[in-house]
């Protein structure tokens, strides 16, 4: 109750809900440093903690919206939809998992592809939706990635992929494994045609996704602090029977071991990728302070 309502006699005081009108989730906290953050500010920072620089996971659609120039992009492959062709059932049916994931995320599968412009440079970009069954790669992800790369091939424009995935989608069994070959094969075609491909690995990029499309960039970029690797840390710990070194399989570890070209802050990603692609495609210099 605020001071003003306290002044009012009880008889004319009415309970209103406006007291609670602070929108849900106006405040949030950093998952790393626990600092309380104003959500709007966090969003302005593309879900990077303004205090400690921790890169939180970001939704695929939001990532792409922020990546492309405003209103320049159109979606590709949205008509490719998942199918429970094995009638796979573990503790839940795959069909139910798909429905649940679609309801929770508003997406139809774990990869979103868009064609558009970044600093006026035309390109195709795709992003994994980690909230959709752990960003796992099944037939739809494989096909959409294939269509993304094919569009890049046909239009002779670069391809960018932001990966965030636990690996292959077990519910599609061996068919999911074959998506590793499918995505790698189309990247080999891109390579032959000298179309640039930039792979951005975000937290986490593991298993079959890491061991195919994510590691095949002409330039491999990692976001700070992302978990990137083939085998999961728990599996490795169990296999080798020793505690893993500090920072094992994190972006900085990968940079040190020569697996990625650079670590780029998400807030600079757009500018840095545009700059790299402009050089690879012999485009004029990007302006120093790009406004769009």
């Amino acid at each position, binding site marked *: 109750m605020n001071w003003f309502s306290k002044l009012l006699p009880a008889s004319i005081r009415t309970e209103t809900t406006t007291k609670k009108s602070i929108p849900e989730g106006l405040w949030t906290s950093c998952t790393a440093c626990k600092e309380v953050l104003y959500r709007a500010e966090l969003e302005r920072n593309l879900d990077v903690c303004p205090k400690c620089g921790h890169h939180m996971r970001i939704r695929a659609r939001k990532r792409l919206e922020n990546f492309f120039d405003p209103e320049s992009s159109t979606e590709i492959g949205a008509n490719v939809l998942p199918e429970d062709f094995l009638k796979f059932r*573990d503790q839940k049916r795959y069909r139910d998992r798909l429905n649940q994931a679609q309801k929770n995320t508003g997406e139809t599968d774990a990869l979103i592809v868009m064609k558009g412009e970044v600093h006026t440079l035309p390109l195709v970009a795709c992003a994994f939706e980690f909230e959709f069954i752990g960003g796992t790669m099944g037939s739809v992800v494989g096909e959409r990635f294939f269509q993304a790369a094919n569009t890049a091939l046909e239009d002779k424009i670069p391809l960018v992929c932001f990966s965030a995935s636990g690996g292959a989608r*077990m519910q599609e069994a*061996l*068919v999911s494994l074959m998506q*590793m*070959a499918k995505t*790698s094969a189309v990247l080999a075609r891109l390579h032959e045609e000298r179309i640039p491909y930039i792979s951005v690995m975000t937290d986490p990029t593991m298993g079959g996704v890491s061991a195919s499309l994510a590691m095949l960039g002409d330039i491999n970029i990692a976001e700070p602090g992302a978990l990137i690797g083939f085998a999961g840390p728990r599996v490795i710990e169990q*296999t080798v029977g*020793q505690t893993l070194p500090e920072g094992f399989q994190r972006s900085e570890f990968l940079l040190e071991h020569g697996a990625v070209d650079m670590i780029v802050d998400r807030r600079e990603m757009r500018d840095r990728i545009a700059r790299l692609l402009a050089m690879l495609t012999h485009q004029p210099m990007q302006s120093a302070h790009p406004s769009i």
Partner: protein
Amino acid sequence: MALNFLDFEQPIADLEAKIEELRYLGDDAEIDINEEIARLKARSEELTKSIFSNLNAVQIAKLARHPKRPYTLDYVERIFTDFEELHGDRQFADDAAIVCGLARLDGEPIAIIGHQKGRNTKENIHRNFGMPRPEGYRKARRIMKMAEKFNLPLLTFIDTPGAYPGIGAEERGQSEAIAKNLFVMSRLKTPIISTVIGEGGSGGALAIGVPDKLLMLQYSTYSVISPEGCASILWKSQEKAEQAAEAMGITSDRLKDLGLVDEVINEPLGGAHRDYAKMAAVLKEALKASLAEFSSIARDELLARRYQRIIGAGHFITS
């Protein structure tokens, strides 16, 4: 030869033990027991036939991992001549979990890449239980490129629990090593025939198996994750491995139905380990026939077909 009977083969084992016993007796017994032995032998065969005609996925997985199962080098010895093993990735080490080399198949030179497991503890430590590290995949890639350069058909043999999940393997880029092999094989300008001879363990298997034609021995398996791994993730319990194996469909017949495997090669009664010579002879014929399919195809056409084969994998709805 001692056969290391699996649990589901116990009735066969009992019968075989009885036959052995009789044989031992037969040495000093006056009566002729040959007839009895022959009768029991026939029964053992009947029993084996009936048990093997009805195997579930987990039983087949046990056969695929059978400690007596023929490995890559067992086939190399029996199928090819002039085998020369080639070692090392030229960068870091020689990984004994993958063997590579040149050999002749009925006189024709070919290149070979295969996973290799060990027979005993000492060998298995050397071979790392058939789980390659990045240097193994990079050695394989070197041989792939060599096969292309010298116009040699490439034969690969898949038999691994998976790529090794170790600290050093991650440090040296296990993911990149596998990814690059998929990339290279998809455009390699020479025919590739891959055969799953035992365990096809996920990315570690695929990394030497993006072929023009994929063969699979009857009792081998190929899966995106081991049944145990799948069970522990999706069922939160390793004990559900049987259900996981059935759900994923890891056996040759299921994968043939899904169109992921081109041809299933039948094994001798009781599995490949019961008769190395026969298995090798059957596999040799299948490899020759497969190579013949691709030998006269122009390289561009070969690559185009392989590409279609690779990108055709997937089940989805288009709205």
